[in-house]
């Protein structure tokens, strides 16, 4: 085996070991990158915050259930059930599972906007939420 091959292999192994946990922890950022790429534009946290707090033709906004400070727990507006904080800095489970994220965007966007959210809207909201500090 050539020395260069050994070096490459060692680097690959070390990289995998390092990346393993890092990939998981970076999940929200990765999802955000995916939505931004789909939207073809950079996400805007300011737009995301506005979007989150505004009603969009229907009765509820995102903040109606998630609260205006999503680093804290929210409360379901019709059932009163507590909803865990939405900001990843306050709740590590958030935006860690792509299928779950898509499911909730589909349902909740339909409740708030009466339609699905665009990739740009999802990216904006996520970029705002990811930037929130507890």
């Amino acid at each position, binding site marked *: 085996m050539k020395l260069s091959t050994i070096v490459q292999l060692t680097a690959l192994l070390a990289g995998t070991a390092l990346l393993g946990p890092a990939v998981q922890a970076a999940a929200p950022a990765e999802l955000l990158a995916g939505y931004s790429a789909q939207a073809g534009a950079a996400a805007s946290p300011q737009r995301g915050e506005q979007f989150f707090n505004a009603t969009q033709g229907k009765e509820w906004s995102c903040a109606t259930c998630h609260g205006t400070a999503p680093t804290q727990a929210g409360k379901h507006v*019709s059932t009163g059930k507590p909803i865990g904080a939405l900001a990843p800095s306050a709740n590590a489970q958030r935006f860690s599972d792509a299928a779950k994220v898509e499911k909730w965007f*589909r*349902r909740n966007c339909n409740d708030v906007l009466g339609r699905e959210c665009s990739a740009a809207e999802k990216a904006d909201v996520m970029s705002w939420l990811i930037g929130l500090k507890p």
Partner: protein
Amino acid sequence: MSARLASRWWLAFLCASVATLGMTFAARADDSRASRVPPLPEYTQECASCHLAFPPGLLPAASWRRVMDNLPRHYGTDASLDPALTRKLSAWLEANAGTGKRAREQPPEDRITRAAWFVREHDEVPATTWTLPAVKSPANCSACHTRAEQGDFSERHIRLPR
């Protein structure tokens, strides 16, 4: 009436009483058993995000079927799930649906809270309690039934908020 005949009548009466009592207890046991079916993990995961994972025994199968067929329009919200999971939860709900005396009724809008038994059981709750911020909705069982999440609705574990 001879003494022998009288004793027969007495025996028949006794048997009937015991049978009635037995049926009453059976019905009660049925109700409480229905509340304590161990929940399917997916049921808790999907449904308890927004409300209590209502015990399947509190609605008859026909009501659960309609509820599960209409998840995209679920009491004012979109609660849609992927088709495979919807089928799995529906099958479990219908298999464990109520069969007792209470559950024979399909309540209006398939709402547990509008079933005659529910209204009757809660007729002592003051009107002001229902509107408290801690209660908000009659579907918020846990507001008063402190062990509702464990399927325990016994009177011992009721605490009315003030």
